[in-house]
């Protein structure tokens, strides 16, 4: 029983990281209107940026956060220029295949530049445990959950209160109408894409801190998990996809308590297929959110 509770706590922590990835993913899908395969690679780049910053400037979490955010922002700009800008009017599959190409490009370049092996992440947060009765929570988990919550609140403020956020929402609802209203659609779509990618990068840094490892090939399964979480939340609904991320994290951790840890990804994708069979529109009950 104790073990189960600890696993749920682990699941919550991991789920909050997945929620951050999923939020980024749904911002990208919502604003750009096209689905991306590069999210996993963006996450990986964020993790590596934070890793090198920690190596160079010591264990400053805020600095690493900014570095991973901005590195992923730059990658997001690259992805936007290559995959989306030319293809707003073209059939969807063209930009889709383009994102697959870019994802291959980034992954293999990263393997060449960063080396193909796993790297140990530095001990950024000291290893302390708090005991709540029989349940143990580590300091890392607490800091991760706090970071995710703060970032989520910041994103929600950005989207609901600022001018940029309003134009982002307008673009995600109707591109031609917002174009007629005098919004620079292409630039807004790029900003939306970059914000989503930046959140993915921060999630990558948190994951690397949590698992204590990072590698150039970590992206592909993470990208799919981000997709699963945001499908669970209705793909473009930001709040629901955060909830979906939490769900996926908890289910994974409960699943590996039953079997072995090597089946972790199997549970995430099996759950995705199950969701698509039972309730394909996710938690968001809005009609017409299908991409």
């Amino acid at each position, binding site marked *: 029983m104790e073990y189960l509770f600890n696993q749920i706590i682990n699941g919550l922590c991991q789920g909050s990281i997945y929620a951050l990835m999923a939020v980024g993913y749904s911002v990208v899908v919502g604003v750009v*209107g096209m*689905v991306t395969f590069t999210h996993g690679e963006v996450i990986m780049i964020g993790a590596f940026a934070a890793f090198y910053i920690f190596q160079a400037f010591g264990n400053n979490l805020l600095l690493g956060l900014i570095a991973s955010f901005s590195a992923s922002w730059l990658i997001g700009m690259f992805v936007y220029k*290559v995959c989306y800008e*030319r293809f*707003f*009017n*073209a*059939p*969807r*599959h*063209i*930009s*889709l*295949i*383009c994102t*697959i*190409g*870019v994802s*291959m*490009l980034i*992954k*293999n*370049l990263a*393997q*060449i530049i960063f080396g193909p092996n796993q790297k140990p992440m530095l001990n950024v947060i000291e290893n302390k445990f708090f005991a709540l009765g029989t349940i143990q929570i580590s300091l890392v988990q607490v800091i991760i959950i706090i970071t995710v919550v703060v970032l989520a609140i910041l994103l929600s403020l950005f989207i609901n209160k600022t001018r940029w956020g309003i134009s982002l929402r307008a673009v995600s609802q*109707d*591109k*031609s109408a917002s*174009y007629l209203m005098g919004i620079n*659609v*292409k630039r807004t779509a790029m900003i939306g894409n970059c914000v989503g990618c930046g959140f993915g990068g921060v999630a990558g840094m948190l994951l690397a801190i949590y698992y204590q490892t990072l590698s150039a090939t970590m992206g*592909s*399964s993470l990208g*799919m998990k981000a*997709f*699963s979480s945001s*499908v669970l939340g209705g793909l473009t609904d930001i709040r629901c996809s955060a909830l979906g991320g939490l769900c996926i994290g908890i289910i994974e951790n409960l699943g590996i308590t039953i079997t*072995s840890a*090597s*089946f972790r*990804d*199997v549970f*995430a*994708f*099996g759950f*995705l*297929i199950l969701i*698509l*069979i039972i309730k*394909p529109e996710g938690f968001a009950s809005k009609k017409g959110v*299908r*991409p």
Partner: protein
Amino acid sequence: MKNIIQKCKEIYIKNKIIIVVLAAIITLVLPVLVPKSYFMGIMCRILMYATLAGSLNVINGYSGQMCIGQAGFFCIGAYCEAILATRFGINFWIIIPLAGLVTAIVGLGISLPTLKMKGIYLSIVTLGFSEIVRLTALNWESVTGGPMGIKGIPTPNLFGFEISNSKTYYFIFLAIAILFIFVTKRVVKSRIGRAWLAIREDQLAAKSLGVEVPKYKAFNFMYGAFWAGVVGAVYAPYVRFIDSTFFTLDEGFNILSMVIIGGQGTLVGPVCGSVIVNLLTEVLRPIGEWRMVAYAILIIVMMWWRPQGLVGASDSILAGDKGNGKKLEKSKQKGGGAHGVSVRS
């Protein structure tokens, strides 16, 4: 570029019989002319990937669904052969259709939850499925041998001939490739194939004209999966040892890049792509790990300049929205900054 392809087509249509006979003679005489096993190995790879890319092309090119995890089906076929041959000693020639059937049934299971949704869901589900298959093969030790793989897969036997090296195996791959192209050509020209093309061009219009979209989509997926399974079953005794590292996502992307570079929606396209990519692999061997980078750049360049691929179906939706593109250019010329961003629902 367009003119060259057009001319090639005209020449082919004029001298159809001569070209087919010539090609048949060349392919049959090739092992006698160049008996080096290195060269024959490359030929085997080209033929194998041509069939594999062709099976993916049936899904991606003919019905416009996006499958990315073809390596998963390939894996299932190969493991099917390996397990049935080593554990139960079933004849190779019986296993081939059996492996294909098993893979087709798995394909049906994959496509069912996504039939009513648009393509993107299918592509991610296939991607996840490919990983699930690989992880299962890696971890289910009692059946698949886990990380040790399956060793000593028996070589096939045809009327007393032992088919064991690449020179003789070439003929099996050739037979499978020819069978695949022949059957697919017949299927594509039939009612089923026309339904697939209609779904690719406009799903809604096809539905309104009485095409049962989910049924044909599922059948299309099963058909593609079937051939991937067959190729997997033929591949396993060729290498005689399989483990899960053969079937990573990179393998799936490799197959996908062949389809995209060669051309989607035609039968020649994947063959062409397979020849290009495999020859490139041999040429680019010195640059080693930069190879995948080169493929990635090739894919992006292909999408920018010729989305339907080198010899793909240029009169289809795969070639992009030509009318819209022209309008966009015109509006750019007129208004300078008028982008004309509109969303296709």
